């Protein structure tokens, strides 16, 4: 463990409120820090030059140990780019701080040295918005490829097949003569490349950029033996999608590795910024397609925070029920596939899928779709539960699922082969877990009892009696077992919710295909099955968001993959990756 994290460990937990913290910052750094006075905005604006000092002060003196989200906003009208940070001390709301820089010279000091969790997020912000984070150890593009032209989330960047700035498009009605985008803009003409680019004579800097950092560590570590760089994925069943992991190996031992993303990148955030607020909802299904209900919920809560709309009681309960069922679905898959990764081919997965199918039946009954649920709405849910839904769900929650969880535990946990593969593998100590921004089962498996349903209750989670599952060894085995604990707690919440659920409407106000959103910003996070899922929205008062950002759980949880894997065998990488539990739809967006 490094020296800095030692000092953090002895730090007293902060008792300051966020407002106090802002006050302290204003006093301590006069002229460098000022309040963000814009209507509907919160937090402080920090001068770029003093950002590192202020950040270190926040971490060491104010006890802000967890940097949750880093992103950027393109304020095109006043020629500025803004780097936006959300950090947490433990309990309570976010401490928000921002740095505004000129669009022509967008340079912001990197915070990776203060909070390692900024690593991937700063790269993302650099990639998509072109903010250069000075001092970042490896500032490369992350979702697009090195050599990509332009920064897709800048407001003046246009995608191939670009039609209009904002939806709805005028060409659809009342004179909507159909055409296929492909015909109008055939492939080959929709590529933009820099003027000095010669397609017949170029070097593939993308590959060099990926391999180079690894080759360096490979050389440093063992000069006398030969280290090899190999690829795992992007087309490999054990990477749970199209994740590519580039590893430097010494024999079978992993010396270093680097995940490479973007194979499923579809510029989700740009699509979102073209859409109106309600139109984004079905797109959120496609982020973490295993848990679409939770993703829906997180987005709806973010818009509700911005607009102040509150859903009716019954809708709140339905949302909680759906979110907890989703958690069970996700954990069933996580444990099943983890066993697949160890080599127990498909029996455990199929058993888990059995139960998942039953829950998906419930989703199909209520929402009309099994995976792309699109069920939660701003200010309520799509429609009330259909007849017979509750009885079916009760039989599952009271009888079948608890029985299944016990049985499944019997099937797997005492298996000696499994224990040999899992215990002591991929250890992530608590201090590091916080520093790298790990959340969800990954964090709680490392002994940090941090659950957003408890520390910053949203929706109606403050009404339920449940324990925050936590295990202390931080290895693959604990991360696996904690999912059983969490399923049991979810069942507990479900039973309470099913008993308390009142009758009544499920939607506030009248359903409409547009909603009025006041100007301002909002960040809302929930405890999604995989960890903290946050949505950051900026509205300028129009029906479409000015900025729409997803704080992706899976992407940020991968920050610690390299350090968990170093020194283990290649086969363990697969298991460690499985124990983090990622969905590539959310990693790449």
């Amino acid at each position, binding site marked *: 463990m490094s020296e800095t994290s030692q000092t953090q460990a002895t730090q007293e937990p902060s008792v300051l409120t966020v407002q106090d913290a802002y006050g302290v910052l204003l006093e301590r750094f006069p002229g460098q820090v000022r309040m963000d006075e814009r209507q509907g905005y919160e937090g402080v604006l920090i001068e770029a030059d003093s950002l590192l000092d202020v950040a270190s002060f926040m971490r060491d003196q104010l006890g802000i140990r967890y940097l949750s989200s880093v992103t950027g906003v393109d304020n095109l009208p006043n020629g500025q780019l803004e780097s936006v940070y959300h950090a947490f001390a433990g309990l309570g709301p976010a401490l928000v701080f921002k740095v505004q820089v000129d669009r022509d010279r967008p340079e912001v000091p990197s915070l990776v040295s203060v909070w390692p969790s900024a690593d991937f997020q700063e790269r993302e912000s650099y990639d998509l918005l072109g903010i250069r984070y000075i001092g970042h150890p490896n500032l490369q593009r992350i979702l697009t490829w090195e050599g990509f032209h332009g920064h897709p989330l800048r407001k003046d960047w246009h995608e191939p097949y670009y*039609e209009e700035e904002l*939806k*709805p*498009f005028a*060409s*659809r*009605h*009342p*004179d*909507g*003569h*159909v055409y*296929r985008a492909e015909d109008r803009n055939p492939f080959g003409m929709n590529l933009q490349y820099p003027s000095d680019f010669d397609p017949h004579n170029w070097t593939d800097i993308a590959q060099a950029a990926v391999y180079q950092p690894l080759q360096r560590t490979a050389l440093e570590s063992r000069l006398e033996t030969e280290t090899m760089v190999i690829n795992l994925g992007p087309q490999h069943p054990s990477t749970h999608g199209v994740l590519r992991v580039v590893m430097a190996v010494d024999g079978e031992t992993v010396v270093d590795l680097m995940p490479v993303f973007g194979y499923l990148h579809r510029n989700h955030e740009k699509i979102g910024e073209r*859409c109106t607020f*309600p*139109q*984004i*909802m*079905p*797109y959120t299904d496609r982020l973490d397609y295993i848990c679409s209900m939770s993703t829906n919920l997180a987005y709806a809560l973010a818009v509700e925070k911005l607009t102040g709309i509150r859903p009716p009681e019954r809708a709140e309960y339905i949302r909680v029920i759906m979110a907890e069922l989703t958690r069970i679905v996700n954990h069933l898959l996580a444990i099943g596939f983890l066993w697949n990764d160890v080599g127990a081919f498909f*029996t455990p997965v*199929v*058993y888990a899928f*059995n139960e998942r*199918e*039953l829950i998906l*039946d419930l989703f*199909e*009954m*209520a*929402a*009309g*779709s099994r995976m*792309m649920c*699109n069920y939660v709405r701003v200010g309520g849910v*799509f*429609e009330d539960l*259909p*007849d017979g839904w509750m009885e*079916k769900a009760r*039989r*599952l929650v009271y*009888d*079948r699922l608890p029985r299944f969880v016990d*049985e499944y535990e*019997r*099937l*797997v*946990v*005492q*298996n*000696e*082969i*499994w*224990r040999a593969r899992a215990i002591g593998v991929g250890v992530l100590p608590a201090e590091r877990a916080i520093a790298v921004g790990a959340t969800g089962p990954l964090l709680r498996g490392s002994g940090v009892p941090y659950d957003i349903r408890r520390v910053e209750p949203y929706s109606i989670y403050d009404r339920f009696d449940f324990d925050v599952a936590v295990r202390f060894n931080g290895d693959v085995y604990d991360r696996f077992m904690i999912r059983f604990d969490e399923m049991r707690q979810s069942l507990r919440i479900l039973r309470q919710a099913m008993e308390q659920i009142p009758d009544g409407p499920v939607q506030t106000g009248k*359903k*409409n*295909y547009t909603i009025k959103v006041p100007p301002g910003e909002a960040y809302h996070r929930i405890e999604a099955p995989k960890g903290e899922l946050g949505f950051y929205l900026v509205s300028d008062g129009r029906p479409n968001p000015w900025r729409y950002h997803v704080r992706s759980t899976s992407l940020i949880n991968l920050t610690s993959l390299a350090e968990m894997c170093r020194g283990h065998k290649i086969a363990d990488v697969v298991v460690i990756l499985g124990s983090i539990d990622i969905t590539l739809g959310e990693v790449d967006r």
Partner: protein
Amino acid sequence: MYGMGVLKGLSVTLKHFVNTYLDDFKYGFLWIGNKRYTTEVLPKRQSAEARGIFTVQYPEEVLKPQERFRFVPFLVYEGSDENREYRCTACGICSKACPPQCIWIVRANDPETGRPLRKPAEFYVDIDICMNCGSCAEFCPFDAIKMDHDFELADYDRTLSHIHDIQRLGKPVEYYARIRPSYHASEQAEILAKADKSARAKG
């Protein structure tokens, strides 16, 4: 003893194996052609009480979709196939609400005056782009566009056959009543109540 954990796990697999056959007997053993279950038995085998595995052999056995199941939209029409009266008024709300913007509507104009009419001349849904979200059906104020249950749309051509025009999109109201009975019933009840109210207001 080393190896006990593995044996214990195997006992669970064995139990599942046996239970599947026990369920076969319990719910009526059936091996006709390729089918193992009848449509009546399937819900029981897939219920919370069942113990065994309940895989179905698609396409020989097909699960019935839930009423709310949604797959590409269709347009409801009244009247006969030759004389279709679409409910759609070409108001354009669905095309505005559609997230990927795959609905295209041409409003009909009166051939004499040139004034717009309350009906569509052309109506397209590009089902390559449609994400089956159901927004169009959700926000249509005239119950004119609804989500279908027919998901077997595999096709040899990926271009024009995936742009459904008004002819292809249209389905009779009887079909709608069959796949979504409770929605249809509540809409009918609403219409009756409204007619009743206006009749009383007049009378």
